[in-house]
């Protein structure tokens, strides 16, 4: 049943006065997909989630679940459940009463059995009678998850699910969330401002910027082939080298003339005219020191165990960051003059 469910957002818009918090977002979710909305705070991702849950009425556009238009339904009539960032556990109820709150339609026995099953699923059996304030953060998070799954929602919304957890717990919980999602086949939509969280969890990521959905794709695609400087910077450290675009080549790459010589990189997603101002985006781990590439001076090197991080400077002083295995480029002490190059398909040309 859950496998047939698709969520479709059609030109969904929410305006607060003149400000568009969510601006004409179109999105189609595959059944059983783990989707993540990623963006800085204030980009509209939480408003978008609240419109799917029914807590905010869209200014225009539609929310369609399966074949049904649910845009006008109040939250308690939507086959959608949400796990809140603060967990929103009812402080005056036991763990079992929290998890069973949404099971009013079931008989008493069936509801109790379902609560027991859910608590087993999140590995909290035996915690039935405890109050939320006697639980640790991770346990509360699991109660919130069990409660949100109790009604077998066709779509589960999660608002910053790992935000309140410390590092060790995050990785454990992330694995659990994925496991639960795979077992149930429910579509999950996660909202987060943390790119690491997004990449750990999601099948696909939708990046939001100022109310707009600017790029949607698998984590690796977004990381390697960002469509804009914003997406490139959001998903991790990146070097941006300005230059002028050369003619298109047969293999899909293009040459960019920088102030320090030509470099070759994968062509831009948007067709850009020859001679346009562009930047070449290169991740630090793609930048290798050696005989080829742009002339640089090693300004600083930091040994981090599994890798070495180097700060390089182009002749005009522009900093570049490189990181690689400790053995590589070991003969390049601080102050050495060398060259920094990269494989053409490890870099992407973006509009300036």
């Amino acid at each position, binding site marked *: 049943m859950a496998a047939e469910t698709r969520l479709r957002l059609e030109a969904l818009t929410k305006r607060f006065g003149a400000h568009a918090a969510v601006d004409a977002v179109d999105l189609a979710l595959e059944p059983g997909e783990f989707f993540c909305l990623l963006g800085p705070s204030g980009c509209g991702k939480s408003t978008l989630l609240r419109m799917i849950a029914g807590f905010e009425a869209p200014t225009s556009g539609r929310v369609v679940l399966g074949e049904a238009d649910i845009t006008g339904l109040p939250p308690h009539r939507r086959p959608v*459940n949400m796990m809140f960032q603060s967990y929103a556990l009812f402080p005056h109820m036991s763990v079992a009463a929290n998890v069973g*709150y949404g099971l009013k339609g079931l008989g008493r026995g069936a509801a109790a059995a379902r609560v027991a099953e859910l608590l087993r699923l999140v590995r909290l059996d035996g915690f039935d009678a405890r109050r939320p304030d006697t639980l640790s953060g991770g346990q509360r998070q699991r109660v919130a998850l069990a409660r949100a799954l109790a009604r077998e929602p066709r779509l589960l919304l999660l608002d910053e699910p790992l935000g309140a957890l410390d590092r060790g717990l995050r990785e454990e919980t992330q694995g659990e969330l994925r496991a639960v999602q795979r077992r149930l086949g429910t579509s999950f939509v996660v909202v987060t401002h943390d790119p690491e969280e997004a990449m750990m969890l999601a099948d696909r990521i939708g990046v939001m910027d100022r109310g707009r959905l600017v790029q949607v794709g698998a984590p690796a695609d977004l990381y390697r082939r960002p469509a804009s400087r914003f997406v490139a910077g959001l998903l991790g450290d990146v070097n941006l080298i300005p230059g002028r675009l050369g003619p298109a080549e047969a293999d899909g790459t293009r040459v960019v003339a920088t102030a320090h010589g030509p470099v070759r990189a994968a062509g831009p997603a948007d067709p850009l005219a020859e001679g346009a101002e562009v930047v070449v985006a290169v991740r630090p781990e793609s930048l290798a020191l050696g005989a080829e590439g742009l002339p640089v001076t090693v300004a600083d090197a930091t040994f981090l165990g599994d890798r070495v991080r180097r700060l390089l400077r182009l002749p005009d002083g522009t900093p570049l960051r490189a990181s690689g295995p400790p053995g590589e480029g070991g003969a390049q002490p601080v102050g050495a003059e060398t060259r920094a190059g990269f494989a053409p398909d490890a870099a992407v040309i973006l509009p300036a």
Partner: protein
Amino acid sequence: MTPVTRAALVLGLAFLYAPILVLVAYSFNASSLVTVWGGFSTRWYGVLFADEPLIAATWVSFRVAVLSSLIATVLGTLAALALERHGRFRGRFLFTGLVYGPMVMPEVMIGLSLLLMFIGIGFDRGLATLVVAHATFCTGFVAVVVAARLRGLDPTLEEAAADLGAGPLRVLLTVTLPLLAPAVVAGALLAFALSLDDLVIASFVSGPGSTTLPMRLYSRVRLGVNPEINAASTLLIALVGVAVLAASWLTARRGGTG
């Protein structure tokens, strides 16, 4: 604390509470002259408990306080819910003024206007008019106390309940009200104390046979004070004090349900 601020504090507290302490002390006076100390005695409490009119007035005050605080609690809680949980409805500003107005209006005006209204609609004055009048001016106080707690209540708890399929009524009964309970009880106790205390409004709207305790005490004092009045006042202060302390304890307690 410097000696100066300490002295200021003592003076300030003395200004506020010394008269009350004198009143309480003289309620244990053996002499029948209020201003002459004749040794310690509880004789005036004995006189008090044998004083039929005073007991009757106490009973009136108590019934009025219970009924009016119940009505004020229901209305005040509903008003707070409307103000804090229903956004910007049309007439919200006017409604706010109407709810909080009776708290700042002179009591004489409230009393007089209620009296004119009761006469105008031909409503016989008695216990019922007292209850209505007290419920009217206590509603705002309950609304203030409940609204303050409602503002501090995480709205995502109510959203979570709605998300789990609860309609608005079930959200109110199973989540909002249980979490508001300490504030609702505090508001009720405050209303109870205010009703028990009131002299001015009661003087306007009470009828024959429905004289409240503060009215009875006031009329006695006009004929001359004796320590029995002190004893009655001491008991009234104790009752009101307990109600107010309980109210502030409930308000200050965080969570209150965990």
